[in-house]
């Protein structure tokens, strides 16, 4: 059997290596249009501020890794069509074809360029590829007025690292708070208090851009450098050419099968169901890409596992502050018509006598039965473990009562003896009881 994977990013590459672990005999070919092997795109912001100092280290797999696993990689190869179970691609202008038995589209996402009057007349940066990163890194200049349009994850991370490089950063967000897909306003306010080196303008309605001036409905901002981080959308060019079924992303079933037999899709290019809402969403998370890759590799080789709806477990580091969210925010839950209870609790991250400088804020969203729907955490310390706990709790439909009875680990240098999540759970449970009886 020959498995051809279009796209050598996280999803495609992980799938290739998983396939090889499960089967030593099948032929595996990755076709990648870039001139480099797989790298970690999430690492790019941290190269800008030198938190990661060695650029080469973000390339997780080296040439010999592919060779040792008998995985063929065709770099600088751009696929232009799929016909009669053959991949048609070009290398240095020369057309070639490669038949497949199973085809996997892992074509990723592309950065959105919003329709802003005047944007096409100015130079601006985006952060999606290695080339983008190199351009940004080369342009770093202390004191430079840098404006970032878009305060989603990439925009906020970029604003954070640019400010750490002592650029004067202004971050514009059209919604009522930064990280609108992750945080409610009350949690975003807490985060903003830590991002003191960034000027943040919310509810920013941009009318036009003229030379180096952004004109908004209620003000103007000048820039030396402009960064556009208004999100990314699935790369559907090939899928549409093939006439695969697509909406916002490539439509796949619970085994990642597309509308064509023997054609699958994973990673940033697909759409999938969201756990709480049941709605179809696009979600561009590296953790999902690698998890999907493992599922698909097993599926293709006959060990079928159903892919379940996602909870969008997301985390980031901004300077010395960690922020993350999972499941539904209060804003989103209310927009979906859910009746919810929310509890927010802030405390010292570790025992107060150990450190009074480091804080943590958690927010829990539950339904009226106390079933956990979502959570948000901002802290001067690791939050991933708590977010992963919440991700499991949401998927298992655990209640705050169960969460409040969790056997936590404790050490005063690590975490407070009364875990903030536990406190929030206890309070949420009281609210659930009160509302049931009133």
């Amino acid at each position: 059997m020959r498995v051809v994977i279009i796209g050598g990013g996280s999803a495609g590459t992980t799938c290739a290596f998983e396939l090889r672990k499960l089967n030593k005999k099948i032929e595996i070919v990755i076709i990648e249009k870039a001139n480099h092997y797989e790298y970690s795109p999430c690492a790019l912001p941290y190269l800008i501020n030198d938190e990661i100092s060695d650029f080469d280290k973000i390339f997780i797999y080296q040439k010999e890794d592919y060779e040792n696993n008998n995985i063929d990689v065709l770099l600088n190869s751009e696929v232009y069509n799929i016909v009669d179970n053959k991949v048609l691609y070009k290398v240095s202008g020369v057309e070639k074809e490669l038949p497949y038995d199973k085809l996997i589209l892992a074509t990723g996402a592309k950065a959105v360029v919003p329709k802003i009057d005047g944007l096409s007349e100015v130079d601006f940066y985006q952060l999606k590829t290695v080339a983008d990163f190199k351009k940004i890194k080369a342009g770093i200049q202390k004191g430079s007025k840098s404006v970032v349009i878009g305060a989603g994850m990439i925009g906020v991370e970029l604003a954070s690292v640019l400010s750490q490089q002592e650029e004067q950063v202004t971050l514009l967000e059209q919604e009522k708070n930064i990280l609108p897909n992750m945080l409610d306003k009350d949690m975003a306010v807490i985060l903003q208090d830590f991002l003191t080196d960034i000027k943040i303008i919310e509810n920013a309605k941009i009318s036009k851009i003229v030379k180096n001036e952004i004109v908004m409905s209620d003000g103007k901002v000048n820039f030396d450098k402009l960064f556009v981080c208004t999100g990314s959308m699935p790369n559907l060019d090939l899928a549409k050419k093939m006439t695969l079924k697509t909406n916002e992303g490539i439509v796949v079933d619970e085994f990642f099968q597309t509308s064509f037999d023997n054609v699958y899709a994973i990673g940033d290019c697909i759409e999938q169901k969201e756990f709480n809402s049941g709605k179809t969403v696009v979600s561009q998370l590296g953790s999902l890409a690698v998890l999907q890759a493992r599922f698909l590799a097993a599926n293709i080789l006959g060990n079928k596992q159903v892919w379940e709806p996602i909870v969008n477990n997301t985390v980031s580091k901004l300077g010395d502050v960690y922020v993350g969210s999972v499941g539904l925010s209060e804003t989103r839950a209310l927009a979906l018509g859910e009746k919810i209870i929310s509890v927010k609790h802030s405390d010292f991250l570790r025992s107060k006598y150990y450190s009074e400088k480091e804080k943590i804020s958690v927010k829990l969203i539950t339904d009226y039965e106390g079933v956990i729907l979502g959570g948000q955490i901002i802290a001067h310390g690791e939050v991933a473990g708590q977010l992963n706990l919440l991700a499991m709790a949401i998927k298992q439909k655990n209640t705050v009562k169960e969460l409040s009875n969790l056997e936590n680990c404790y050490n005063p240098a690590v975490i407070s003896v009364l875990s903030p999540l536990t406190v929030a759970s206890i309070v949420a449970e009281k609210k659930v009881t009160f509302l049931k009886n009133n």
Partner: protein
Amino acid sequence: MENDFPKDLKYSKDYVWLKKENDVVVLGVVKPGVEQVEEFVFVMLPEKEKQLQKGDVCISLEAVKWSGEITTPVIGKVVDVNMDVFNNPSLLNKDPYKNWLIKIAITDEKELTQLMNANEALLYYQEKLNA
């Protein structure tokens, strides 16, 4: 503490402020009381229509390391509760006079005359909290 007792309110000796508003009395917690608590995490409010006798526990307040109860200094029926504070107890910490807790339809307005005015409350709580 000198500016902690608005002149237009009445006060009990149990950290409660009251204000007559048309047909009801609005009740909340005084600032010196709130200031002793780092952050409220839960506020248990009574049911609407609940009949209260003088001295009845009508509200429970909770912080991470403290919990307490509020007793009503007046007789009446609960007609409204502040769900904003229930949903976000830290509002009490932010402004205990703006963020009332319950409204009571009282039966005898004379009960209000037995409560302390702002000056009396200031002296009382200065002594109580400095003791």
